[in-house]
């Protein structure tokens, strides 16, 4: 079943979406079958692409919309939201 879902998150870790955070996002997204995109203002990037995520230049405090579509869209967004709320496992 194809579903789509949207969820808003805020980048909370002080360093913003830097390398490790971007890698963690891409890694998480790849575990799901759904297509996930990150949207900031009108900048829309593929959630599996580290370099695109990096090039958003999202610093702490940036609001992002996560948009997923596919069989496990809700699960994917739940996993991502957890990642954001845990500050990508940083201190």
């Amino acid at each position: 079943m194809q579903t789509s879902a949207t969820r808003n998150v805020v980048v909370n870790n002080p360093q913003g979406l830097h390398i490790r955070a971007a890698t963690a996002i891409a890694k998480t997204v790849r575990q799901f079958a759904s297509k996930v995109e990150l949207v900031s203002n009108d900048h829309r990037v593929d959630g599996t692409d580290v370099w695109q995520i990096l090039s958003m230049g999202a610093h702490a405090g940036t609001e992002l919309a996560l948009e997923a579509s596919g069989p496990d869209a809700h699960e994917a967004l739940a996993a991502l939201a957890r990642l954001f709320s845990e500050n990508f496992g940083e201190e």
Partner: protein
Amino acid sequence: MQKLQGIGVSPGVAIGEALVMDTEGFRIPRRFVARDAVDDELERLNRAVAAACEEITHHRDAVSKELGEKYSAIFDAHLQMLQDSRLQSELEDMIRLRHYSPEYAVSRVLRRYAGIVQNLESRYLAERANDIFDIEKRLLRHLLGRRREGIAHLTSPVLVLAHNLTPSEAANLDSRFVRGFVTEVGGPGSHTAIVAEALGIPAVVGTGPFLTEVSGGDQVIIDGDEGLVILQPDEETLARYFHEVEEAHTQAVKLESLRDLPTETADGVRVELFGNIEFPYEVDHCVDRRADGVGLYRTEFLYLGADSEPTEDEHFQAYSRVVRAMGDLPVTIRTFDMGADKVRHLPAPEDEHNPFLGLRSIRLALRNLTMFRTQLRAILRSSALGNVRVMFPLVSTVMELRQAKMVLADMMEDLDENGIPFNRDLPVGMMVEVPSAVIMIDHFVEEVDFLSIGTNDLVQYTLAVDRSNKDVVSLYNPADPAVLRLIKMAVDAARRRSLPINCCGQMSGMPHYAMLLLGLGLRQLSVSPGALPEIKKVIRSVRMEQCDAVARRVLSMENARDIKSYVKEELKRAVPRMA
């Protein structure tokens, strides 16, 4: 086109190809590839990526096994980024469509990403873009293999752009091909500044981060007069600067004709004009330009970047080269003037939170007598070969000066006992660069044979300004009336005793201060060899009464900015072509 504002530390304009140095001091090449080589180049890129991935995997596994997965996570991130299909296609496009070399494509693409990350981080001073530079370096290493180019082997003129230049990097550059320097960090006192001045090429420091936006081979303009760096200039800007370079060249040719004329004012007052040097070969520039001697021979280069303390003979070789080249003309050798942090073989100082107020120069010498004695012995030995004078830096109390003189007397005795020739009447002088020395100048003049005002440090210590700190550098101004009054006090005290007094800071080499300095009573100026012709031109163009009037007026003024614009105006009136 992109303009960067930094601090101009060596004047002039240079236009040319960028040589971008990576953090390890290697250059990042630009090479376009031939159309028919594109497939081979793509293959080369793929091999390099594969090799880099293999290397990272290996690292990751080793680290993970030893320290746990948490620590290997960053390698995992590197690996993912390298294997990313978007990166690969971006690189391939550059090679296939734009015919960039893989090296150039790699540094172009990765530096762009590093730029984004640096921008992120400039807000939080968090993790730097080093991870991306790491990936870049790894790929470049695999691409270039042994062909990785050091900066010692240049074959065409370049402008060197670097984060920072270490003394040894600066010294290793092939000066025949370097036409200018830009560094992201550093201030007027940095080594880059000294080397650039010595080479007589423009330099700008303290631009802030920009290396992520250039690649080797890009066209760059360095404007050392204005402290500007222009990346990929447009046609109009380029034309304007080419014109400026041509003008400067015409001017230089004209100044050349003054070479054999005496340095005296239009009304016949003789001024001694000396050269400041650091590296022995610079003495040739002094000889070529008929300097009246070497007014300041800095000796720090012997220590900087050396793994062990220089031997007496290494000192002697360097000094004798300069002394012999100058013949009968005076050579003033300044004993080492640096902090303990710059000398590798000394233990790191413990409380050095404030190096400019710390254990440096004469203080360091008096605490490391063996090192000091070695240098003094070599200076004494070289005094047998010509007209040598010795000078102590950063003297702040009379006691220090006396101690230094005692060590010198010791060394004389030592040489005497060993029957080694030296000049028994070796003139001994000191730098006047700490305000306390000026305040106590009536005592100091009793103890020395000559004085030399070091304006760079005098400005810094008088105004309490670290000139490598961009937030306060605007307070750093040799035209500050407080500084000028100190200079006047020192000159007056020396002249009352007919003691020679020289002025050897960067201020002396700036044409707009020449009239003022003469008006304050100075009859000796010491400037970088590159500035000799210009300063001579100013001196020969002005009359002493004009200079006196300038000094009188300036001494009644109360702020540095007004003084600076006034002396610039006066120079323009007196020597219209110069300003």
